[in-house]
């Protein structure tokens, strides 16, 4: 019996979320370290409140990128060849697998990024812009893009000895449009300007990554078996 694309993707996403909740790595390891990292700049520079407020958005996105990569790349790293082979033999569409993995990573990443706003408000005396739902939209779009990019980078480097260093190196430069779009959106929100241009940058980057992921899914699966 053939299982539909979205149902398959949902099953894979549920599996990944369940594994993530059980291992608790995002909550007990990645998030605390991200909080500590966000504290480093105010602690080390003893900067003025005004300077800290200016630093808040770039530091926030930098930490989200670095710790987000850990979350996303860990998910592809823990899957064994035997598990990938067994999945392929279920007749699962590799594109659905990509969608499911990215969806689960995106949700975990959005949760980590959303919660990271709290220490940034505390340590940087950051005043979040009034449009909270717009800020949430920006975080969601950025998290979705980073998740798809991480899933792709993880799949491209499967089986390589240098994978742990190569995957982040591959991911970081390609994340520039996402980081630019996200950081500039928040800057524009704070300044009371329109964010439509930067949101469009995020949407286009997400669509490009989704297309790349879906189109390369079959070829990447063949390499990984």
């Amino acid at each position, binding site marked *: *019996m*053939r*299982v539909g694309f979205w149902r*398959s993707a949902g*099953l894979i996403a549920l*599996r990944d979320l*369940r*594994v993530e909740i*059980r*291992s608790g790595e995002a909550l007990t390891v990645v998030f605390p370290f991200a909080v500590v990292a966000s504290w480093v700049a105010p602690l080390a520079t003893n900067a003025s409140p005004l300077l800290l407020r200016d630093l808040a958005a770039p530091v926030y996105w930098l930490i989200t990128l670095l710790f987000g990569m850990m979350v996303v790349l860990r998910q592809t790293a823990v899957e*064994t060849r*035997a*598990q990938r*082979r*067994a*999945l*392929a*033999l*279920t*007749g*699962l569409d590799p594109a659905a697998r990509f969608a499911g993995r990215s969806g689960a990573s995106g949700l975990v990443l959005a949760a980590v990024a959303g919660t990271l706003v709290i220490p940034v408000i505390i340590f940087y005396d950051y005043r979040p812009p009034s449009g909270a739902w717009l800020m949430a939209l920006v975080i969601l779009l950025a998290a979705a893009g980073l998740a798809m990019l991480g899933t792709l980078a993880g799949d491209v480097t499967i089986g390589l000895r240098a994978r742990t260093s190569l995957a982040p190196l591959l991911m970081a430069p390609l994340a520039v449009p996402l980081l630019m779009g996200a950081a500039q959106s928040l800057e524009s929100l704070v300044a009371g300007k329109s964010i439509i241009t930067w949101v469009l940058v995020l949407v286009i980057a997400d669509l490009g990554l989704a297309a790349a992921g879906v189109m390369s899914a*079959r070829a990447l699966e*063949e390499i990984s*078996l």
Partner: protein
Amino acid sequence: MPIHSKRVSRPPDFQPVSSDLPLVDLVDVSVSLGGAPVLSKCRLTLDPGESLGVAGPNGAGKSTLLGVVATFITPTGGSGTVLGALLAGPRTPAVRSQIGWSGHLPALYPDLTLGENLALAARLTGHPVSRGRKVLTQVGLGAAAGIRAERCSNGMLRRADLARLLIGSPRLVLLDEPDAGLDQDAAAIIDHLITRTTRRDGAVLCVSHDAARLSGWVDRVVEMREGRIV
């Protein structure tokens, strides 16, 4: 050349396959990994209703042969078909759902319970979750359904991995050292899996270093040495 043959009893309603096409047909298939030959000009045919064992020492190329038949490994030489699809051809992914495979290491997720692992396998293949529970009970693990895979013994994991193959009805079943870590009682699961598959006009390819053990399960056993079927 077979080193052992065994006649398998067929159910009275057994009908020979309508098609003459073999389920697996490898012609002079070779595989090199990192420049080193692992398989050399292997010829292998598996007809519907047939079970074949491949015995040989460690490093003989048995698992690689299984990987080729499972369509995981692309041959570097020769040609062949699996379930009618050319190896490394465009139709290969389409026939994968008819292949059941159990490798050296169980393909279970350590953070999920045995029940959740089997439920996932059942749902992804379009079966109800109850099917996962049923096969888990069938292999004697009904009471262990709520235990996380990471806390199970190797024998329990092997049983659960074999239960995965009982969810559907794969036409081609591939088993790599299936009895490793299993007790005598659990070996009956392998026997059941092989008999069930061959009775339905499927085929089974089973590899092991133990020819005597294989001969108890399959129709015939061939030997493999240094990448060649001898």
